[in-house]
């Protein structure tokens, strides 16, 4: 079966198989811009992404949110492309574009029919060094960001709890500040602040260009040289290490907000990958997360939601790749008649079960099968492949190591899972956040709730 498909494609697409072997391709321009190209010829489309190694963690107190505000300002024009013109040109090319800011990076992308790639590269290169930060445009845009904060955080009780959790869990490391910024910092931010940020960090040697889709990598390299190659690199300011001290006791935070359901988050300090080959704990923690919460019959859902009915919903969140320190979060809401204390006890019992009895071979096997399938499924999306490369690179992990990470994950043993459960789930490194739901004042008369989108 598989042979015949390979054979058919080998006949029709002589380039595909050889490409698959060397893919992705990489070069570095003389100004320091790395260019990574992954060829994928399934559909006549392409994604261009530029990732800047600069995120909210590089901000300083009083200027929280400036990385994200600048991201908004990047659409406000250069000497050759007027305000709003960037979006217009992408739209005219039949494209979609947007940008996103994280703690670790700021990234910009366009998805376009492949014929339009050169134009997109010209536009993206232009705003890498030639942005106008017009005070009038800034004054309107920062209001938009404040609305974004109201929508995403201020009126969202869970998001407020998460924001407070991180402000308490981290005291030194800038992960304590929200990506979108504190409202008072946004209120006091000026166009000059945004411009200073841009001038300091937006240079080719602080970025990498990622192109994934129906392209010839040599052509992309030539286009990169043409449009990005002319931009000058510059020495970057030295970044301070900002090491978070070891936590020495449980911290607790409560947020009161209008809601029906309480929410509990238990955040444990956890390691992240620094050396793909030598590290082992981050893989074991990822495996532990898959065994607790990887599918509907994984331990958390099976035991806490379905059997004991102590939780309405429950989950685990652990990202083992980041520039800064790691956290592993357990979270959930108690079911009717149960309390946050009941849920906390139940979550602790599940952790204790792994610490004492370990995990089973069938559980590990199941998690591995899911990993293997997921590796194939991700090939269905060029954008997803670009995101995977970009996120790894931003966390300091070379994209060449992505497959190695999957191998290491496959090799995690039951004993290693048990060992990390004992090592990292300790009360001294724990921060507990609780959403204490409050009644709505002047409750609307509306007696029911939407089932529509």
């Amino acid at each position: 079966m598989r042979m015949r498909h390979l054979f058919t494609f080998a006949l029709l697409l002589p380039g595909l198989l050889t490409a698959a072997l060397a893919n992705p391709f990489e070069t570095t321009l003389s100004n320091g811009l790395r260019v990574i190209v992954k060829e994928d010829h399934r559909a006549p489309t392409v994604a261009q992404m530029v990732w800047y190694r600069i995120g909210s963690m590089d901000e300083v107190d009083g200027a929280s949110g400036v990385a994200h505000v600048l991201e908004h300002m990047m659409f406000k024009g250069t000497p050759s492309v007027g305000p709003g013109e960037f979006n217009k040109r992408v739209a005219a090319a039949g494209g979609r574009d947007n940008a996103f800011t994280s703690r670790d990076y700021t990234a910009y992308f366009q998805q376009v029919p492949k014929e339009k790639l050169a134009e997109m590269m010209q536009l993206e290169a232009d705003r890498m060094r030639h942005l106008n930060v017009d005070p009038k445009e800034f004054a309107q845009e920062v209001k938009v960001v404040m609305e974004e904060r109201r929508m995403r955080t201020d009126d969202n009780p869970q998001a407020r709890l998460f924001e407070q959790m991180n402000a308490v869990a981290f005291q030194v490391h800038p992960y304590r500040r929200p990506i979108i910024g504190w409202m008072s910092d946004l209120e006091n931010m000026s166009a000059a602040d945004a411009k200073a940020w841009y001038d300091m960090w937006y240079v080719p040697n602080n970025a990498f260009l990622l192109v994934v889709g129906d392209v010839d990598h040599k052509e992309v390299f030539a286009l990169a040289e043409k449009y990005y190659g002319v931009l000058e690199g510059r020495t970057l300011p030295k970044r301070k290490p900002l090491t978070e001290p070891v936590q020495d006791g449980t911290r607790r935070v409560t947020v009161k907000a209008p809601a029906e359901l309480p929410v509990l988050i238990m955040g444990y300090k956890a390691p992240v990958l620094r050396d793909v080959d030598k590290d082992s704990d981050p893989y074991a923690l990822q495996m532990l997360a898959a065994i607790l919460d990887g599918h509907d019959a994984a331990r958390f859902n099976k035991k806490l939601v379905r059997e004991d009915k102590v939780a309405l919903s429950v989950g685990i969140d652990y990202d083992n790749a980041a520039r800064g320190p790691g956290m592993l979060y357990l979270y959930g809401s108690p079911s009717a008649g149960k309390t946050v204390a009941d849920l906390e006890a139940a979550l602790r019992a599940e952790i204790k079960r792994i610490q004492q009895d370990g995990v089973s071979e069938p559980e590990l096997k199941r998690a591995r099968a899911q990993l293997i399938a997921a590796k194939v499924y991700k090939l269905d999306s060029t954008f997803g492949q670009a995101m995977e490369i970009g996120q790894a690179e931003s966390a300091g992990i070379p994209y060449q190591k992505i497959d190695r990470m999957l191998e290491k994950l496959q090799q995690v043993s039951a004993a290693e899972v048990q060992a990390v459960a004992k090592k990292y789930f300790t009360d001294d490194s724990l921060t507990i956040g609780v959403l204490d739901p409050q009644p709505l004042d002047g409750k609307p008369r509306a007696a029911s709730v939407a089932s529509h989108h």
Partner: protein
Amino acid sequence: MKKLLTAIVVLFAANSALAGVKIEHWVSPSGARVYFVESRALPILDVQVDFAAGSMFDPPEKSGTASLTRGALELGAGKFDETAIAEQMADIGATLSGSTDNDRASLTLRTLSVAEKRDVALAVLRNVLHAPRFDAAIFEREKARTILALKEAMTRPNSIASKAFWAAMYPDHPYGRQATPETVAVLKRDDLAAFHARYYTAANASITLVGDIGRGEAEKIAEAIAAGLPKGAAATLPAPPRIAPGKTVKLEHPATQAHIHIGLPAIERGNPDFFALTVGNYTLGGGGFVSRLMKEVRDKRGYAYSVSSYFNPLRQTGPFEISLQTKRSQAKDAIAVTRDVLDGFLQQGPSEEELAAAIANLTGSFPLRLDSNKKILANVAVIGFYGLPLDYLDHYQENVRAVTVDAVKQAFSRHIRPADLMTVTVAAD
């Protein structure tokens, strides 16, 4: 030889921006409509089974039935309990997901296409569709969870606004009825079993397959799914929505931002004005960062992070809707600007330049709508479920290109009647 030819056709299709997707369609011997796209590039098979079993078919006073029925399918079927079903899927890395909207209840399977995994995954899919148990204890648990989730949603300004908006637009049509803690509380296990027996039938199903199988295999897979369902009959539609005169609904809430919805019932799927409205709406509020609403409400005034308009064509007349959120103290101003933009557009339509930009984007971005199996599956499932022409995707670009400024103006004046517009606000001062 035949294989090679097919592959060449597929390859050319993929390289031409004009071509859609080659959809094969047949009716299975047991009476289900089947839609199939062969795609050999990746060893993946996606299968979606859609039933006309959405919330519009909830029995009166029992809103929530459709959603709970769909959700309970994989919580015990045949001789397998919910744990066994989830483990069977996880063991082979397959995923089974579901959704329920106004019209449709859907189950979607993604599996590796190698026979030893695919066969297991398809057996699970058939089992949960053919023999769900609706165990009483599990039903009671899910009912309690649903009631709690509905109570939580009732505290959220966006949920409250959306619910009130649909209720205002559809005062006596099922689209306006929503699940509430009260309607879910009265449900019995047998309500779900009865709903399943009535609506999860071959005649009421469309099956979409995309991926690494041949036509012969697709026929067998589809028929095996259909053969285990009761033959049944297509769902009977209620009387079409009656248009209610426009009004304003203002609800209190302590949120910092007001949630605003403006709109009315507009068009059903397959309406001949669809392309004129889609092209026109791109300029009004559908075109993301380049729409008039975005420019006036967000860029010029900083009133909102997100503002958009869209048509949501359904089996029966679905809504046109503008939505935005803004600081509660400036809700009145934001609504005024939004109405100005809408009224101006209704009077003048798009400029020739705007029309050309809309057409350029909607035709140019067409390949992006079909550049993964997942997107092809979603598009073909809609074509199948709503009975759109099989060459819908092939002609999409030319239909867009044929739209004129006049056609947009006329279509908008037919469907967007200012006197019928509903305005719903939550947390506006």
